[in-house]
């Protein structure tokens, strides 16, 4: 579904990703782990098409298309979803209104009928239950005045409503207390199907207690330096990232972080 080859990208002339290779197939869950500054969030933003990031080399194919040629909105309409590390506030626009606009633009582009208000509300109510949010939530302005946990749950609500083919979760677990983490993780886990794929970008292993990944990749200094199964995450948890640094450092000297 997603094939990343030798991807180089940066921001403001500074190279952050230095040759990423990654294959993601339908039905798979990949965890991308790594210490702060390793390029995890950059990878997520580049895949979603954030205008501040420039791709300098490499290619990304998604469902047979060149993903990098698509505008952010066309990527979304093609089924790429990013759960933001820092969800953005949109004053004056209710979550319901925002999501209705989103789903209907996506549906229109995919040649489906728009949902009317009644169908949409029914869908939204069903998904609200998944993230254990009450209905007052959807009439509040998007993320405005939300707690950190509410913002993350709102991302998962959107994920559930939009049902993307490829979901990228950027540090969705960070800053969550244990209850919120459980709700978010169960929400995500419930959305796994054989047809979609997920990339979980995370610093900590704890999210992976709830969602078992098929593959774990360690990102370091802009490259994937180690890949393995779910046991790699546990190893990282036990040994810390220094172990990786030492292992990689032994092979080649590190550039500036």
């Amino acid at each position, binding site marked *: 579904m997603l094939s990343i080859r030798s991807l180089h990208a940066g921001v403001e002339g500074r190279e952050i990703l230095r040759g990423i290779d990654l294959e993601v197939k339908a039905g798979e869950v990949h965890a991308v782990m790594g210490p702060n500054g390793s390029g995890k969030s950059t990878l997520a933003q580049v895949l*979603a*098409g*954030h*205008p*501040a990031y420039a791709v300098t080399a490499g290619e990304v194919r998604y469902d047979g298309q060149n993903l990098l040629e698509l*505008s*952010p*909105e066309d*990527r*979304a*309409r093609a089924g790429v*979803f*990013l759960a*933001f590390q820092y*969800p*953005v*506030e*949109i*004053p*004056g*626009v209710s979550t319901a*209104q*925002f*999501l209705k*606009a*989103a*789903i209907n*633009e*996506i549906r229109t*582009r995919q040649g489906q009928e728009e949902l009317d208000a009644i169908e949409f509300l029914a869908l939204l109510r069903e998904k609200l239950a998944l993230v254990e949010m009450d209905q007052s939530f959807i009439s509040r*302005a998007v993320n405005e005045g939300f707690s950190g946990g509410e913002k993350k749950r709102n991302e998962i609500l*959107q994920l559930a409503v*939009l049902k993307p083919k490829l979901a990228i979760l950027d540090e969705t677990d960070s800053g969550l207390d244990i209850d919120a983490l459980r709700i978010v993780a169960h929400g995500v886990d419930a959305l796994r199907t054989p047809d979609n794929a997920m990339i979980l970008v995370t610093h900590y292993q704890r999210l992976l207690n709830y969602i078992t990944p098929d593959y774990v990749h360690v990102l370091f200094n802009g490259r994937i330096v180690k890949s393995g199964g779910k046991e790699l995450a546990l190893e990282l948890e036990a040994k810390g990232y220094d172990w990786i640094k030492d292992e990689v450092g032994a092979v080649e000297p590190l550039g500036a972080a």
Partner: protein
Amino acid sequence: MSTTAKTVEAAVNREYEWGFVTDIEADAIAPGLNEDIIRLISSKKNEPEFMLEWRLRAYRHWVKMDKGAGEPRWANVTHPPIDYQSIVYYSAPKQNTAPGSLEEVDPKLLQTFEKLGIPLGEQKRLTGVAVDAVFDSVSVATTFKGKLAELGIIFCSFSEAVQNHPDLIEKYLGSVVPYTDNFFASLNSAVFTDGSFCYIPKGVRCPMELSTYFRINAAGSGQFERTLIVADEGSYVSYLEGCTAPMRDENQLHAAVVELVALENAQIKYATIQNWYAGDQEGRGGIYNFVTKRGKCVGRRSKISWTQVETGSAITWKYPSVILQGDDSVGEFYSVALVNNYQQADTGTKMIHIGKNTRSTILSKGISAGHGNNTYRGLVKVLPRAEHARNRTQCDSLLLGDRCGAHTTPYIEVANPTASVEHEASTAKISEDQLFYCKQRGISAENAVSMIVNGFCKDVFKNLPMEFAVEASKLLGVSLEGGVG
């Protein structure tokens, strides 16, 4: 240019839909302004003596001002000097006789209004809205007149009111905005040609929205209309005004006056959707909208609300105000003012607290895009007798792009220590992150901008009658199309 600016620019380019010209023969007088022109206008309208006298007093006052300080210069707007002698002060579509019924109205006029979404014919009329349609200098038709008359409500063109209800006109004309009020109000008093008049009798709740639609058609003419609404004791009326004009390279002057009078326990809601031609993307052409609107809460517990959505005009200069004379009276001002391309708006309100326990609310939302320049200018004045007067003001500005401007100029004068006056202001920009967030959810930049702008204005829109709130929201999207960066 940032991506935000580019997307906003893309979101902002559509043709002005109402820019067509109706090809109709006009009965226009020669351009120019002098006492003879005033006499000519008055005689064309077959006015009683008191009207002519009033016009002449206004004209003489205006001449003094014109020779003195001239136009007001304090507003944050610039324009080349206006040549008042080159304006045509009277232009009416030619009709053999005054139409007695719709069948006698020139079909071209009916088509024009139909094209503007204001069908006047019996079968197609907007339900629940009575319309007075004003084309250049004259009113062409007023719908539902008979039905309203059954309740004792007078709703007709100003000219008709002068003929049929001269006592009411003489009593209330200039009682809120005297002809000496300001440069443009004096000019209007001298040369105004038509407008709407409305009287709601004691205790009557007007069962439908009353509405006036103003259309400028003729080139080289100005539009000077005058609206007077009197709500007698315990009555209620909701009023809506709309306006459009053809696209022309020249600037056209629109200097209107609106006076509202609310007697004891009466309530008037007045809403404006102003969509005069705004000029092109380089700032050529467009209407100079220099308007004086004021309401007077004469009686106790009376209430006047102004709601305005200002998206058109090259320059907007207007301050719908309320004089809170009766004790416990209430004044409200809700405003959305949008400037794009090279539009300029200097708009706001005045709340003059005279009576005890008077309350006022001001909510102003300014949106600036392109090279637009938007100023909120408002006065809250509490006089010595206004015990426990209260005001709450909130002014929010939204900037789209980095070449536009937003300014807030509040004046607060309080002469009673028991009064409470609150002022809050904010300025925000649509950020790159907000746009990216929307796009990542599949929402196009155009829809994202329009959704954010509408969200910003929602507290004002909810004061509009339902069907017009939808219209206003659409209009905002259209007005944003075309020239930001």
